């Protein structure tokens, strides 16, 4: 159900052709992460299925960002394991992550996207074609030659999403992508996330914004003090919170 219909020429055999064996589902079993005496994640178990948007929900300091980085492979768990359906050598290249504060390169908007495609080994003409495509779909076409670092917060976040999306990731991790944005910019970013999910990429989004979860996510993973305290469909979680902590969080009465 990929929107990108024309076959892409991946020079190093990354991307499409190897997608025949999907990465997902991802099973996390007994994940623990400790830093010194602090246990930041404690016995986390869950399964990420392919398709749709899963929200990692929880108050500040719950361990959401950390969990995303563990899944993406930027950090190694102290104990426990991550079991992908399939573990190719280019595992991370088939994923992407957008950080809360987008890290943009000091070059033009278009060059930021081109860079991500270049490191994936895409040929030059294919790169520029795909970059144009991404810019058009993220509404950044008019800003293509602007230095990326002078964009507004919303535009920067969109560019970061475009750059992550450009590589056609099977799974995309987003860390609070709409935090610090005004409502209009947040809405645009949310629409873009929905489009990305519709194009076939699995989206995992860390957030503490309940309304946002209702608007865009299908599944939720509720995290509190490094533990999973509920997971399931968004509808079920909101209508029937699995425990008092989740209920308190939904009421806005849970403090870290």
């Amino acid at each position, binding site marked *: 159900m990929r929107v990108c219909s024309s076959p892409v020429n991946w020079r190093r055999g990354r991307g499409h052709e190897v997608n025949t064996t999907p990465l997902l589902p991802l099973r996390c079993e007994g994940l623990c992460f400790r830093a010194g005496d602090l246990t930041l994640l404690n016995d986390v178990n869950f399964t990420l299925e392919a398709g749709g948007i899963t929200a990692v929900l929880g108050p500040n300091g719950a361990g959401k960002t950390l969990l995303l980085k563990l899944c993406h492979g930027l950090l190694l768990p102290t104990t426990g394991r991550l079991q992908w359906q399939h573990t190719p050598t*280019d595992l991370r290249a088939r994923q992407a992550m957008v950080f809360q504060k987008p*890290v943009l390169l000091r070059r033009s908007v278009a060059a930021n996207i081109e860079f991500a495609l270049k490191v994936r080994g895409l040929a030059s003409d294919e790169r520029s074609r795909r970059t144009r495509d991404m810019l058009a779909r993220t509404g950044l076409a008019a800003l293509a030659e602007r230095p990326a670092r002078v964009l507004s917060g919303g535009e920067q976040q969109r560019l970061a999403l475009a750059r992550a999306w450009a590589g056609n990731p099977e799974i995309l991790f987003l860390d609070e992508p709409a935090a610090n944005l005004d409502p209009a910019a947040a809405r645009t970013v949310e629409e873009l996330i929905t489009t990305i999910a519709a194009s076939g990429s699995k989206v995992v989004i860390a957030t503490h914004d309940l309304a946002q979860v209702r608007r865009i996510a299908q599944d939720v993973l509720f995290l509190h003090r490094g533990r999973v305290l509920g997971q399931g469909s968004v509808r079920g979680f909101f209508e029937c919170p699995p425990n008092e902590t989740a209920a308190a969080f939904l009421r806005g009465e849970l403090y870290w």
Partner: protein
Amino acid sequence: MSEFSTALSLAFDLLRHADPVLVDIVLRSLRVSLLALAMAGVLGFALAALITVTRFPGRTALIIGINAAMALPPVVVGLAVYLLLSRAGPLGGWGLLFSPTAMVIAQVVLVTPLICGLARQTLEDAWREYAELFASLDLGTLRALSTLLVETRHSLLTTLLAGFGRAISEVGAVLIVGGNIAHVTRVMTTTIAMETSRGNLALALALGLILIFIALLVNAGVFFTRELAARQGA
């Protein structure tokens, strides 16, 4: 005060007539220092990048050593290079003493620690910002390093200018290893020292003004090139 006004008008006269002896000396100064800068830049940046992304035993000691070497006295460097290149020294067979190449070598030794020390600070700050993105994009170490160098190019350019300043203004080392030979190893600074010893204070001062003027031109050139690049979104 009269020395200053005499020096100023003398400097103007020398520049206006493009005095051939002066032009020869200025070009040699630039050639030696720019070549030394290019080599020190390659060495310094490579070493700084290596220190930034790798961890190895003795790394801290190396950093402290490099930072301390920023204060290397030029005369000591000159003496060390002299003893190496002297006919009686270990590299005497190369026959490089009292040549522009010897001056380049001395300036490379002087400037590399400065460039490496300053660049390392820049690169480490940038590395903290970019490390996760590069890991996420699955960049290899070499690609991460080259990208980091490109990303910090503006700060690194300033580092190069600092290195250029140290190279072109230095006299102690190039006097010892170059010998201030007319038409061969005579550069701006050794000429200034020589004219001072001849008691031609106004001329020496005028040459100093011209040296500063050239440094000004180089810096202005870099500044405006950078502005232009920034405006074009680079």
